[in-house]
């Protein structure tokens, strides 16, 4: 499989372990990628607050580049997935709007015809590679491990832009992945909730309450770790967990937050160091130890 790869700013900035672990896992799965180095940031829905059309132009520009290459676009961030899907959805619904955007892109010699598909690595694995194929790369089943899924808003809403009707597995893609590793899916209130990152700098009190609720709830429900396909959720749930838990639950940050490719890598038996598990703010030691006990 070959994709036009759009890693996103956070995987190349605040969460380098996501980029590194994704690269390793993709190689193991024979996923060939061409990185879209000319692409811009998606705007993450924030730039769109000031100017939605500007955001749409930037994202359609990226989609046009992937279209030119004749490849499906691969992302490793829920927010990238959602923001690009929404822009795509808007132009596919409104050809006049697409014409206006193409007009701006003309100077650069680009034109978007509306054919590019955008897939998060998690979806690409399920839809293009297949979980059975994935399982063949695992060294052993992670029996006894309890993992709590945390999707990130942009991977679950709005369901029409994400084409849930056409791809019904997307709605439980993360649960399917967790089950494929042999681990148990933790049922708790955070699965499709908001991590609070978008208001971290605006209303930190509320943002931290969300972090504390979700990580605390995962713990109370017996999870060994939270797994997320979104590096922004990771930033908030991991980076701000100590402060959030101290403030709202008067306890310690003890819920490790694992990126999707890190989980796959661990099941493949790849070392914790290569997967960057030591780079997290909340220690991953206990959960890694538990996994090592199972896989060794």
């Amino acid at each position, binding site marked *: 499989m070959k994709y036009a790869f759009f890693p996103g*700013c*956070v995987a*190349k*900035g*605040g*969460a*380098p*372990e996501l980029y590194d672990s994704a690269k390793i896992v993709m190689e193991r799965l024979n996923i060939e990628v061409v990185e879209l*180095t*000319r*692409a*811009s*940031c998606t*705007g*993450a*829905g*924030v*730039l*769109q*607050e*000031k*100017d*939605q*059309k*500007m955001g749409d*132009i*930037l994202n359609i*520009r990226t989609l046009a580049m992937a279209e030119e290459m004749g490849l499906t676009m691969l992302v490793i961030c829920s927010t990238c997935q959602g923001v690009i899907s929404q822009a795509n959805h808007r132009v596919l619904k409104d050809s006049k709007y697409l014409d206006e955007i193409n007009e*701006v*892109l003309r*100077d*650069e010699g680009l034109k978007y015809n509306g054919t590019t598909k955008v897939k998060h690595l998690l979806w690409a694995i399920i839809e293009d590679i297949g979980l059975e194929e994935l399982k063949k790369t695992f060294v052993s089943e992670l029996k006894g491990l309890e993992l709590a899924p945390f999707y990130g*808003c*942009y991977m679950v*809403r*709005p*369901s029409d832009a994400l084409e849930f009707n056409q791809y019904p597995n997307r709605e439980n893609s993360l649960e399917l992945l967790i089950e494929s590793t042999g681990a148990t899916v933790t049922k708790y209130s955070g699965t499709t*909730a*908001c991590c*609070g990152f*978008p*208001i971290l*700098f*605006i*209303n*930190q*009190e*509320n*943002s931290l*309450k*969300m972090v504390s*609720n979700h990580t605390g709830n995962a713990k109370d429900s017996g999870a060994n770790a939270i797994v997320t396909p979104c590096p922004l959720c990771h930033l908030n749930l991991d*980076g*701000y967990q100590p*402060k959030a838990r101290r403030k709202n639950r008067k306890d310690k940050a003890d819920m490790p937050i694992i990126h999707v490719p890190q989980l796959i890598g661990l099941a493949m038996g790849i070392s914790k160091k290569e997967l960057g598990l*030591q*780079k*997290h*703010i909340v220690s991953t030691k206990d959960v890694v130890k538990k996994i090592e006990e199972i896989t060794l």
Partner: protein
Amino acid sequence: MEVKLNIKRFDPELPSDNEWWQEYSIQINSNTTILDALIKIRDEIDGTLALRCACRASICGSCGMRVNGRARLVCKTRVESILKNNEPLNIEPLGNHSIIRDLVVSLDSFFSKIDQVTPYIVPDSEPETGEFIASNESMENLLTSMNCIMCGVCVSDCTVLEVDNKFIGPAALAKAWRFVEDPRDGKKEERLRYLNDQDGGIWDCTRCMQCVEVCPKGVAPMDRIMEMRESAIESGNKSTSGYKHTESFYNSVKKHGRLDETRLAVDSAGITNIPRLLDLAPIGMKALLKGKLPPLIPHKAEDKEKIKDIYKKVEEKKQ
């Protein structure tokens, strides 16, 4: 076929153990709505079950409830459409509302928030002809929000209301937008200033899209909130950290084609806001030690000049 409904019960008159889950089995066909099923339970099995409904045709907005964790109008949802492997459906009252009994919630706080946004037209002057004439186009634009049936479904699943009941919330903010945009209203600027400055105003929304997903009438409250953020900025409301956040993001992409995370944190807090910056510092230090601080020199998209050209072109057109 037979299905099971697991219903959250609440009886305020019981001295203790006044909350419990109760399971009911009933026969349905493929057209049975959840509301039909609940009425059937009340009529045939348990007369004590309290629920609220009126039109049964998704017009009155009375029958909002949470089904399997997601708010919906139960008259608009067929049982079969959400049944999975014949597992029982979990039915609870709306979230973020106080509960009166079983599935009936109080709408007091819902309407006090609607009141908070002055939900009526405040004209600047008397109309010349005895009535204000508004064009068809200007009214059509307002239809999204005017379709609201005040069912409280969006409020139930709003992530911010879950942690902060000062937030004005999706339904009332969508209502506020309707008056901000109405050409007959004379208080647009005052409205925007209030919604911008107010604790719990437009910048407190996390953009989680719950309200867009669950609203049965296509009101898309979050989209209305985002339009008001754009309008508030255009009207010169630039004091909030929300504004600084989006402005910084916009400029980071303009300059580098990419996001500059360090700049973003500093700009959102405000460079002179020492307490807030100190507040951000501990996590910065920890991240640095772990080797993952966002690079101080932002990454540059190879084609950043092309991106600057796009900005220029779009910004020129706006003026």
